């Protein structure tokens, strides 16, 4: 006993008397986590209620998750997502405004997606919140005006997707890994056009049915309080049987396949190396595979892909891998964005890292670092009640042991080097990969060696096979002549010249709208013979941007960045495409142009004319037969960055003997604007100074 006291009294002296601050504290033993067991019962109408009590704060969250599996949608691909974003848009009893106001009044939050509805509020307001939630669940009525709004939003989204290399790559990943599987169905303009209000309502009725659904409740509520509430608000919910399908994922490749999606003018290739894997949540291998993925490329800066392709080779700003494990299908993908000239080298290195992690055990330091970083982010995620709700549901849905998440950290700590190599061998099918590249055509030849049979499969922006571009049957000059004939119909050369001579100036105003923007924008463009142009974009009395270009000077003024005076080179470049009908001047203006062939564009055969004015590369698509211009794709490159804009022309109409497009859509990055002609005037007085600084 005495010894013990002495020992105790010595300890503090030692601890406080001296301190070597350069010694870094070591971590204590891995903490245990306290995830309370949830309580579960089934209601008469077939819902499984899962309660996870958490009395830290007087708040509660109710989430209904349907038991339906994802469905094949075919010609209606995208229906579920469209329906999901409309669920809280109105009921037979409340307008959207009334729902919003009532939810605001109690400081609650209500949201929905294609298979769930979620309410979060203070416990004392849950009656009011549940009243609205159950109204939405049972009486959502999808007002036509809201349907129209959401469809419009999706149309813009699809247009943006066509110029976003990342989205194109993701579409291809889904499509290629999951043939004949709901995951492999991608919404296109054609399938979106097939979707109407009736189908949305149908989807909702079939999917949101009590039988097989889950009501996950997390927060400051106990079972005795919950049960009567469930009866009151969800007891009368009726519906049919949920749709159930057994879905899964399996790699059926015989060897590596290379897929290519053309992105004209790209200076970077987006590479995704991907393959489906046969694993479901809760599989004993899952956590090991997760650690493996973190070492390979999921763990940020220290991961192998990052170290090799960024730190060592400087091919990219970032190279990552992702592990996606779901009940209905799982896959791995690895990649990033790479300069054109290293596209093949980057693929080589990614494949090398796959092989290396299969062949050799990872090293202990690597493993330890990843494990502690994973343990930390797991622990931090537990603070959010929604994480706990997700766990509670996952335990029930995936038939996991009750303590699956409770013992997560111990399971993580127990993973060793052998485990990692075992799952690497089992799941990383390094010779049966899908290698997806979105990029510039100039890289395509260098991709052939990666394909087992040397045949590269070409896809469009939505992952569908494209027809190969074929050689044109006319010359570039013939194309330009045919275009001019098409837009100035029934005139011989002399008549055309006479007509054009009479036009000294033109002013056109288009009104542009964007779903995310509450007010329209006006775009004005003016031209004064022979070669002076001005343009401006304005809304709500603010001029966002304007530009002035004459044969001798040019400048642009931007609301945020101020005025830029153009260099002589830039003025010269701009001058290459001025004129009332710029195409007539290409032969003499110094514009470089080349007819590169005939391509399929949304089902239309088009001649593709490649242009370069020294500053901007662009591609103009002319429909075969009519010779009308369908689209202009412009690519501006600044260093590693490319900015792409895509203008689609519609509704051609005759103005003063010349045919112009009265409607157009312009997509740049995330934004898509729809434009309609307001006025087009010829030979009017133009105050050109208004376009200068």
């Amino acid at each position, binding site marked *: 006993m005495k010894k013990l006291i002495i020992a105790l009294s010595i300890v503090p002296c030692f601890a406080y008397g001296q301190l070597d*601050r350069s010694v870094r*504290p070591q*971590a204590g033993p891995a*903490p245990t986590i306290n995830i309370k067991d949830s309580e579960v019962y089934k209601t008469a109408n077939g819902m499984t209620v899962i309660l996870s009590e958490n009395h830290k704060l007087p708040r509660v969250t109710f989430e209904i998750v349907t038991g339906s599996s994802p469905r094949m949608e075919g010609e209606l691909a995208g229906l579920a997502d469209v329906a999901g974003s409309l669920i809280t848009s109105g009921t037979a009893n409340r307008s959207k405004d009334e729902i919003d106001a009532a939810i605001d009044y109690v400081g609650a939050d209500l949201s929905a997606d294609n298979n769930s509805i979620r309410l979060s509020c203070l416990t004392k307001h849950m009656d009011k919140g549940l009243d609205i939630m159950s109204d939405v669940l049972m009486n959502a009525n999808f007002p036509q005006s809201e349907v129209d709004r959401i469809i419009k939003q999706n149309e813009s989204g699809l247009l943006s997707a066509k110029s976003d290399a990342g989205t194109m790559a993701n579409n291809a990943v889904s499509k290629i890994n999951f043939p004949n599987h709901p995951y492999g169905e991608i919404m296109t303009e054609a399938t979106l056009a097939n979707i109407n209000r009736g189908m949305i309502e149908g989807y909702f009725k079939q999917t949101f049915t009590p039988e097989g659904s889950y009501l996950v409740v997390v927060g400051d509520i106990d079972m005795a309080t919950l049960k009567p509430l469930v009866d009151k608000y969800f007891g009368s919910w009726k519906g049919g049987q949920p749709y159930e399908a057994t879905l899964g994922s399996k790699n059926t490749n015989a060897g590596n396949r290379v897929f290519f999606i053309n992105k004209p003018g790209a200076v970077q290739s987006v590479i995704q190396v991907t393959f489906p894997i046969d694993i479901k949540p809760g599989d004993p291998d899952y956590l090991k595979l997760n650690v493996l993925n973190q070492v390979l490329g999921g763990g940020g800066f220290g991961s192998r892909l990052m170290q090799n392709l960024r730190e060592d080779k400087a091919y990219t700003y970032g190279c990552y891998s992702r592990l996606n494990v779901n009940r209905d299908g799982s896959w791995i993908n690895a990649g990033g964005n790479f300069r054109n000239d290293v596209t093949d080298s980057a693929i080589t290195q990614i494949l090398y890292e796959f092989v290396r992690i299969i062949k050799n055990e990872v090293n202990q330091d690597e493993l330890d*670092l990843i494990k502690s970083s994973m343990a930390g982010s797991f*622990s931090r995620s537990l603070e959010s009640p929604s994480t706990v709700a997700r766990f509670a549901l996952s335990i029930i849905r995936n038939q996991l042991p009750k303590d699956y998440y409770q013992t997560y950290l111990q399971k993580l700590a127990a993973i060793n080097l052998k485990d990692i190599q075992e799952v690497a061998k089992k799941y990383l099918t390094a010779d049966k990969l899908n290698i997806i590249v979105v990029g510039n055509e100039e890289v395509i030849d260098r991709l052939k060696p990666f394909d087992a049979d040397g045949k590269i499969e070409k896809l469009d922006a939505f992952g569908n096979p494209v027809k190969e571009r074929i050689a044109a049957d006319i010359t570039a000059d013939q194309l330009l002549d045919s275009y001019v004939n098409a837009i100035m119909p029934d005139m011989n050369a002399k008549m055309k010249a006479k007509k054009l001579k009479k036009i000294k100036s033109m002013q056109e105003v288009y009104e542009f709208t964007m779903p995310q923007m509450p007010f329209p924008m006006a775009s004005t463009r003016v031209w004064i013979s022979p070669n002076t142009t001005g343009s401006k974009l304005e809304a709500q009395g603010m001029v966002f941007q304007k530009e002035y270009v004459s044969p001798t000077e040019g400048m642009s003024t931007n609301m945020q960045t101020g005025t830029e005076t153009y260099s002589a080179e830039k003025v010269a470049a701009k001058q290459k495409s001025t004129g009332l009908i710029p195409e007539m001047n290409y032969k003499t203006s110094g514009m470089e142009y080349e007819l590169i062939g005939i391509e399929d564009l949304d089902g239309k055969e088009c001649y593709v004319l490649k242009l370069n004015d020294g500053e901007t590369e662009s591609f103009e698509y002319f429909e075969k037969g009519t010779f009308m211009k369908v689209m202009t794709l412009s690519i501006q490159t600044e260093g590693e960055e490319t900015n792409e804009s895509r203008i689609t022309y519609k509704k051609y109409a005759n103005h003063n003997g010349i045919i112009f497009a009265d409607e157009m859509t312009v997509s740049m990055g995330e934004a898509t604007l729809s434009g309609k002609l307001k006025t087009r005037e010829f030979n009017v007085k133009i105050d050109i100074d208004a376009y200068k600084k």
Partner: protein
Amino acid sequence: MKQIVISSFVSLLALQTTAQKEIKFTEYDLDNGIHVILHEEHATPIVAVSVLYHVGSKNENPDRTGFAHFFEHLLFEGTTNIDRGEYDNLVESNGGTLNANTSQDRTYYYEILPSNQTELGVWLESERMLHAKVDNVGIETQRSVVKEEKRQRVDNQPYASFITETFSRMFTEHPYNWVPIGSMEHLDAAQEADYVNFYRTFYVPANATVSIAGDIDIAQTKKWIEKYFGSIPKGQAINMYRDWELLSDDAFEGKYGVKRSSFDANNFLKPKDKAAAAKLKELENKAIEIPRPGKAKEQLTTVIKDTIYDNIQLPAIFMAYRFPEETNKDMYALQMMNDVLSGGASSRINKSLVERQQIAQFAFSFAYGLEDAGLGIFAAIAAKDKSLDSIQIAFDAEIQKIKTDLISEEEFEKIRNQYENQFISSNASVAGIAENLAQNHVYNGGTNKINTELENYMKVTREDIQRVAQKYLTQDKRIILLYLPKEDQK
């Protein structure tokens, strides 16, 4: 018997859960003056380790503005024992995350870590307090980062200068005259010695509150705090220690009159000879004086109306009233009054100016409560072709209305509901709790305000709201700033 015990225990628990959710904490002072607040809860195995330094832009010299915010950046550069750039890595590779922020009144640093790394967090923050790298390499690096931040957040933002313009007119004497981002010229003009001096004045134990919340064992955490923070020298002795690290033997002896070799880094508080011990003791007993400006005395006496030309397209108006400091009882009612006027889409100003009259593109108000003074600001950007006069008239009508008529019961209830929700949500995370505890201790008149503050808001009546509107929304004493496009400048 056992059954009964368990069931009564369960019902006891149940009883407790329906009662007010109190946030329990322990607080005490270390010998060197550091105030410590600990909150233990085991819901999640994480911990938030934070230090609040009672220094903000109001403690700066008028010719050295921007220093407080600059230090927020500088103090991630490393310490004597932590290499440059390593501070972030140490946290992140151990599963944690970190950040900091600066206001007129405070500078706040924190880490969120797995709870078995609590000691690491305590060590990291004690290192930052004791001997951060305050040298030219770090100063140069962070100067360019801060300049970039100012370009992004202030210079390139239309109307963003209104805060500077308002504060400089409202406070002619008090250092609220300038705002935390400060002057880039001052940062450029400052020498290494200026920065070192700032560190030695404000980054000292007596000016710090250590607040730790989460999955901790209080007894063990106290030991770590004693070990790492308790060993930081008290009073002016901390700067003797800093000199001991930086100076040569001769310079040290020249400055302190005792031998540098009498001290040892690992046992600094126990020097080897008596003279050194006496000097240490002497300096420990001399407090470092921290300059604080005290409450702002300026009151507006008239209407100050000015026009500012900016890179904007639409004119805007900013009106400012003098509110009291944040600890003033009237601030509860003023905050709630502000929510009636401007809390969300259904509030009065938005409904009237933006939706019904459509004279403003955006319109809102806010109540700014600071340690030494407060402000109420009304702001609106005009809709196309609408005059600033019409907006001022509309604002004045809303102000007149809230002074003349009691707000409706329904409006009052909505505000109370929103308050309660906000208040409760602010304590949802251990990081939020650590910050609220420290904030309440230093600025709001007591750590326990974290539990009682909501009651103070709930005590506010509709009559109180009307009363403070009448008292503080003084139409003959206010600042009116008109923002006009540069093109209009003649």
